[in-house]
């Protein structure tokens, strides 16, 4: 099938077939990273701009490596070094970037919907690398790639997501993605961290980690953000770890071959103890590796073909 999208703004917009195509493409891209010379000329002459308004280690490195392995030229702009600090609006900054004719703008922004606003105004492809609490499609795709790789399928699985669902774009994108592919998603956390109406997105809600873990094929732990203490979401790290941190007991309730996942960065000893994070069921580093492959796949599908060249 042809991939004819201009932008990747969320998992919501993607069809099941498109997700399959992205994951299949990522599977073949993964091989490039295992070569001695990890570079192909596919995106030679293409320009990719990273426009990051929030701190990022993993995501930006992953995009950068993905782009370089495909021979694209890259420029990185962060909020602190951009004209945003001089009072330029997001729209003006993106129009200025657009004027320099990039092929892709990869944006991360603390405001939900910011990439959508930009996508409407630029000809370049826009990839959402995380917007507020809304969406993180490349994370969900790499999570789905990892699960499909290990389980051989994305349908009929039980995926447990535990933590601050309310403020998590990773949770939202994964709920949409996994349910779209035919799995069921159960979310757990203290009620302060479960957003109103999350069931409408296809998730089942429980309030204990054991209930979430029961018969799960995947347990995905979310990072607890300590700055949320000020929002009265939980009393302390200690209490959170006691009641919602992953335990061996909870893991034992899951299926024997359950995968333990985490989008990172992890708070060792809070949401996940070190021995589980580093244990045999953990695929946390596979997620990171697959992140590069998924981003290579997306860049290739968006601007790699002759389609894009003829459009311009």
């Amino acid at each position, binding site marked *: 099938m042809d991939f004819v999208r201009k932008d990747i703004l969320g998992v919501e917009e993607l069809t099941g077939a498109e997700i399959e195509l992205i994951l299949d493409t990522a599977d073949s891209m993964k091989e490039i990273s295992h070569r001695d010379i990890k570079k192909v000329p596919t995106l030679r002459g293409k320009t990719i701009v990273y426009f990051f308004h929030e701190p990022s280690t993993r995501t930006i490195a992953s995009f950068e490596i993905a782009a370089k392995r495909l021979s694209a030229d890259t420029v990185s702009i962060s909020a602190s070094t951009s004209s945003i600090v001089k009072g330029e609006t997001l729209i003006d900054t993106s129009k200025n970037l657009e004027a320099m004719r990039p092929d892709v703008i990869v944006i991360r922004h*603390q405001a939900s919907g910011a990439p959508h606003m930009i996508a409407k105004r630029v000809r370049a492809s826009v990839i959402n690398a995380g917007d*507020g609490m809304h969406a993180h499609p490349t994370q969900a795709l790499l999570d789905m790639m990892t699960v499909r790789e290990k389980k051989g399928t994305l349908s009929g699985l039980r995926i447990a997501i535990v933590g601050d669902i309310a403020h998590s774009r990773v949770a939202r994108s994964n709920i949409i993605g996994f349910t779209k592919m035919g799995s069921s998603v159960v979310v757990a956390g203290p009620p302060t961290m479960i957003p109103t*109406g999350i069931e409408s997105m296809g998730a089942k809600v429980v309030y204990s980690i054991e209930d979430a873990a029961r018969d799960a094929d995947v347990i995905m732990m979310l990072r607890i953000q300590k700055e949320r203490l000020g929002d009265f979401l939980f009393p302390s790290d200690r209490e959170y770890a006691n009641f919602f941190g992953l335990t061996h007991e909870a893991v034992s309730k899951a299926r024997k071959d359950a995968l333990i996942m985490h989008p990172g960065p992890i708070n060792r000893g809070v949401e996940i103890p070190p021995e589980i994070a580093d244990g045999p069921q953990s695929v946390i580093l596979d997620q990171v590796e697959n992140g590069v492959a998924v981003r290579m796949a997306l860049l290739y599908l968006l601007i790699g073909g002759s389609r894009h060249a003829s459009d311009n």
Partner: protein
Amino acid sequence: MRLIIRGGRVIDPASNTNAVKDVIIERGKIVEIKSDGSRGEPLCPPSFEDRKEQKKQKSTIMDASGKWVVPGLIDMHTHLREPGHEYKETIKTGVLAAAAGGFTTICCMPNTDPVNDNRSITDYILKKAKEASRARVYPVGAISKGLKGESLAEFGELKEAGAIAVSDDGHPVMNSQLMRRALEYARGFGLIVISHCEDLYLAGKGVMNEGVIATRLGLRGIPNAVEAGMVARDILLAELTGGRLHIAHVSAEDSVRYIREAKKRGVPVTAETAPHYFSLTEEAVLDYDTNAKMNPPLRTKEDVAAIREGLRDGTIDVIASDHAPHSSLEKELEFDAAANGIVGLETSLSLSLKLVQDGILDPMTLIAKMSTNPARILGIPAGRLTPGASADLTIIDPEIPRTIDIHSFKSKSCNSPFDGWHLQGKSVLTMVEGSIVFEEM
């Protein structure tokens, strides 16, 4: 010079009139309202005496058949942005927009820069309004100095200068003691306190209604309790103090319930809503449309139904526009960063006429909510069509199709989610003190 508005349906709740009549105006005043002259027109040519009489009086006759002739509409909740934010709206463009929307009287909120918390700003607004003419402007003074919620503004001086009410609109009075004292102190001056009900702690960083759509969009939510909790508090304080309370821009089902119950108990409370709260739901925010960002936020269809029911059963006395002009500088931003509010002066009537078309209100009740009731609540000599009253009136064509075009607005700003809406009915003539300030007959 005598003007006869002939053959229109005169709808005047104050005199309980709803009949085809002629309105006769002389020297800026209504002199007579009499049964339709066209029907009683003599078939024989007028006598010499009659013609002499007509000539002497130089009557101009305006045909209003098929139209409604109503007391000039009153918008008790607008933001004119001057002084301080003239790039969004000036008093002059604001009154032009008012006239175009059928309003002869508007009240402007004090959240200007500087804040209208003293005589000099009230004087300034009134001076500018007089220069602009077109519509009568009544400034609303601040409850607290600088809208800071720390100390009372000088109500006595504000009232002397011409302020019609007090409000910290946009900045809820979080301190209950200050609100109590404001209601008490205002009572002594016969001033009404207009409350923007919002619990800032509970609202947190919310930017839209809390619910399924906020969850899907990843936007922080504002639950109904943010508004209704403060409505309940202010009702209790009005009851405690006997001060007159008017609840601004009611949006939530629970608020309607509390106000209804309070009115039943005889608490001195009145309430307004704005057209967007009975015309739109939170779904307007999908796609992160900042023109659908307002405070209080657009709510669910259940809330819309409750607002409509509150209007129908009289719980909500007034429809006010909450006209809030903003430029692209405040609106073409990330949803979180965009300013709250929409312009309303030029869409309010057409949107409200939908309530008549939907069978929620009869024409008389609609006019009461857009003219008679605001006049009564504010205690101003307007909102009636009776001999001796100033000729402030609006002629409405209730049938004419209208497509909202934001670029045709007289307002300086065009932040409206209603662009392109097809509606039925609008004002075709606005008259203040006998002068036509807007005409599209």
